[in-house]
């Protein structure tokens, strides 16, 4: 058994997990219309590959980008593309984004799968298939899995960590997934081992999920996997954060500015393992995921295996509708890291692990009022990144970006611990998110203007050089002419006609004198 380490800060939170895990895993019906945002991952944006009117099959790629850091979007069911345009999406800004709308035909017809034995595939072929399936990290970060795997493979992996921690209150989608798809989780783990060749593998599950721990352990005993252990980790938020989990399991910290695989570690979410298994064994793209729907304003909280692109109101209907009619606050993600949605039309995407349906009055921060920071530092005590949140808040509010950089704003993992303990109820994370995006925008603008300036300066330089060259050429030519001229002038006698005449007169006089003598 390995020795676990305690990370700095964190919170013991009321779990609220029992509500949603009571009914096990339910299959959500496919709605009549699916809305698929083309941007569902971190990295380069996809471009639509279909046009309105096209018929698409289940699993067909409908948006992609040849860039490496990218994950394609697939049609979750068969039907006809009815529109491509801006629709509400899950984004903290509340801005709409490009979506492909599919009118589902109900046949759920898939393209002919290509089914080689995944055990015979080379790592490169496996990663190629994972890439084609549009798989991203399903723990929330949505980083494309295939480039992460190839970077990891290149760095050499010592320990593979399968993350089934799921530390955020209310969310139980990974818990349910582990209990229903334990074999697929473990086969996916096996494929990751086949690609990365780690020395050992740790499957971390928070100890408030005894059924999942038991089920994974039972399934593990029946697999040929070696050097693989199930590790129950203490329930403390945010133990499921990649850096925190690494600290718990290995006692190591990922150095600033580096990534986990730089120190020989590779983390992958249990949901991603299942997606990998399906991609490799059944040639299935990532077109569905398990979504928790919970909160105090939903009649039947539960977990639903949902096709991507399903509008949230469809799920809310499946879960028995709102408990209290008047005003609901919809949040995508958990209560700690989630963000409010602009409406119930927003579709489920690859990142949607949970939909919180809350009564408007129970949600804090809605009044728009918060007290001022009294510098009590309770935020500092709980910050798992060991930052000084109250100083960051101060400088973020003053828009002093230089200072926020000095206080390591970029190291903030937005876990929400600081906002939760703040006695003044300051939505600190909101300030940090705003500051981060503003800094990013400033940097982009800076980069653009730097590039423009560099281009301008280069042009000026080039023109100056051209001018100088032309001048140099002219000077050389003038000098050459001058030289030529000078040379011919020296070889000739004096050509002044007056002098010549005088000389002639002189010569004649002389000859006359000589004649007369």
């Amino acid at each position, binding site marked *: 058994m390995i020795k676990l380490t305690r990370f700095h800060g964190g919170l013991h939170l009321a779990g609220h997990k029992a509500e949603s895990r009571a009914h096990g895993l339910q299959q959500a019906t496919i709605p009549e219309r699916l809305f698929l945002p083309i941007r569902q991952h971190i990295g380069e944006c996809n471009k639509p590959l279909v046009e309105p009117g096209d018929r698409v099959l289940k699993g067909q790629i409908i948006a992609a980008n040849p860039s490496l850091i990218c994950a394609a979007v697939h049609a979750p069911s068969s039907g006809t593309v009815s529109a491509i345009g801006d629709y509400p999406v899950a984004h903290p800004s509340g801005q709409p984004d490009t979506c492909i709308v599919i009118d589902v035909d109900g046949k759920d017809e898939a393209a002919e799968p290509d089914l080689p034995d995944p055990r015979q595939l080379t790592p490169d072929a496996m990663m190629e298939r994972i890439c084609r399936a549009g798989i991203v990290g399903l723990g929330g970060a949505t980083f494309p899995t295939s480039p992460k795997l190839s970077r990891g493979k290149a760095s050499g992996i010592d320990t593979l960590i399968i993350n089934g921690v799921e530390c955020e209150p209310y969310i139980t989608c990974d818990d349910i997934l582990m209990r229903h798809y334990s074999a697929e989780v473990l086969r996916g783990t096996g494929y990751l081992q086949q690609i990365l060749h780690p020395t050992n593998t740790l499957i971390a599950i928070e100890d408030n999920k005894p059924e999942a721990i038991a089920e994974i352990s039972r399934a593990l005993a029946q697999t040929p996997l070696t050097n693989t252990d199930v590790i129950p980790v203490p329930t403390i938020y945010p133990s499921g954060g990649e850096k925190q989990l690494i600290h718990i399991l290995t006692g190591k910290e990922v150095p600033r500015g580096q990534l986990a695989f730089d120190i020989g570690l590779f983390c992958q979410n249990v949901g991603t393992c299942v997606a990998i298994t399906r991609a490799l064994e059944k040639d299935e793209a990532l077109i569905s995921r398990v979504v928790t729907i919970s909160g105090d304003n939903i009649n039947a909280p539960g977990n639903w295996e949902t096709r991507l692109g399903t509008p949230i109101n469809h799920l809310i209907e499946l879960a028995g509708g709102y408990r209290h009619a008047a005003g609901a606050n919809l949040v995508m993600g958990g*209560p700690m890291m989630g963000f409010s949605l602009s409406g119930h039309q927003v579709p489920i995407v690859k990142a949607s692990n949970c939909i919180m349906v809350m009564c408007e009055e129970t949600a804090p921060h809605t009044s728009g009022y918060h007290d001022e920071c009294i510098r009590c*530092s309770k935020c500092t005590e709980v910050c798992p990144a060991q930052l000084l949140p109250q100083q960051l808040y101060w400088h973020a509010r003053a828009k002093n970006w230089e200072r926020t950089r000095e206080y390591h704003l970029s190291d903030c993992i937005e876990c929400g611990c600081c906002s939760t303990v703040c006695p003044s109820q300051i*939505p600190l994370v909101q300030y940090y998110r705003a500051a981060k995006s503003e800094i990013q925008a400033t940097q982009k603008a800076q980069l653009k203007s730097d590039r423009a300036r560099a281009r301008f300066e280069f042009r000026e330089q080039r023109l100056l050089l051209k001018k100088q060259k032309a001048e140099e050429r002219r000077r050389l030519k003038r000098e050459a002419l001058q030289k030529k001229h000078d040379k011919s002038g020296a070889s000739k006698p004096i050509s002044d006609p007056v002098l010549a005449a005088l000389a002639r007169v002189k010569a004649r006089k002389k000859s006359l004198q000589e004649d007369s003598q």
Partner: protein
Amino acid sequence: MTSIAISSSFLPPGNTLRRLMIQVIIALVPGTLAYAWHFGSGVIINIVLAVLFALALEAGILKLRARPVMPHLSDFSAVVAAWLFALCLPMHSPWWLVLVGISFAMIAGKHLYGGLGFNPFNPAMVGYVALLISFPREMTSWYLPASVAGETLSLTDALRYSFGNIDINQFDALSSATPLDQIKTAIGQNISISEIRSSPVFGEYGGKGWEWISFWWFIGGLWLLLTRTIRWHIPVALLGGVLGMALVFYLANPEIYSSPLFHLLSGAVVIGAFFIATDPVTAATTDMGRLVYGLLIGLLIYIIRVWGSYPDGVAFSILLANMCVPLIDYYSQPRVYGEK
């Protein structure tokens, strides 16, 4: 008060400013009762007056500043500041002295800087120091504890005193310099500590009455620690600073330097350590910074007491340390996750 969009966390708030302030008020009760027990009801009158004035001032200023009044009044921060300020005053003070001091505290100490959260100096200490400098006679007329004088002013007399309807000289027999003051004067006259300690105002360790009040401040401080209203760094460093300095000099020459326990149990060291220096707005915010900040206050208290011209130095020390807070905070940033 700031208005921004909705964001995480979406959990109901676990802690509020008001709850923190109520914890402080609860912790102040035993010490305050001990104070009244030993020195009469004057201190209660001071507290009530100061709190009423503070709330009225706060409401008026918030109104002038066009800020919401009720949310700020109900956070009880003004009550705590006024209570602490009233505890610094001599036990019998005229009402106008309380009003002038608390006005200076609330206006110059708090709202001119932008209100709660923006004041660099502890408002209660600002008010107290303003009075100490402006009204030295009123601010140094202290009274004997019941255990020495045999009696304290009755509630009616104390009220009449506070509202100026009574001749101050009538109670001359009850007034006396504080033990710290007496030590300071005696050392100045080359009287040794052991001689002066035979005066009836001295108790077992500190001043009679005072040592018990300090004890109850200590109990209140423990309550604050247990409820995690404050953390241990500032009180421990501050008390460590005072005790450390006192021990070194006491061991060197006990005839002219008082014992560490005397320093601990006299004047405002304990209440300063647990209640005043720990004011989060004006204190350092990092763990390391808080140790430095507390230690600095402790050293300054001892230096001012022994070599300065004031008998006690808690208020000055805290204000001086408040000044250093931005510097201390900047240079005591903790190591960030993943930083070598």
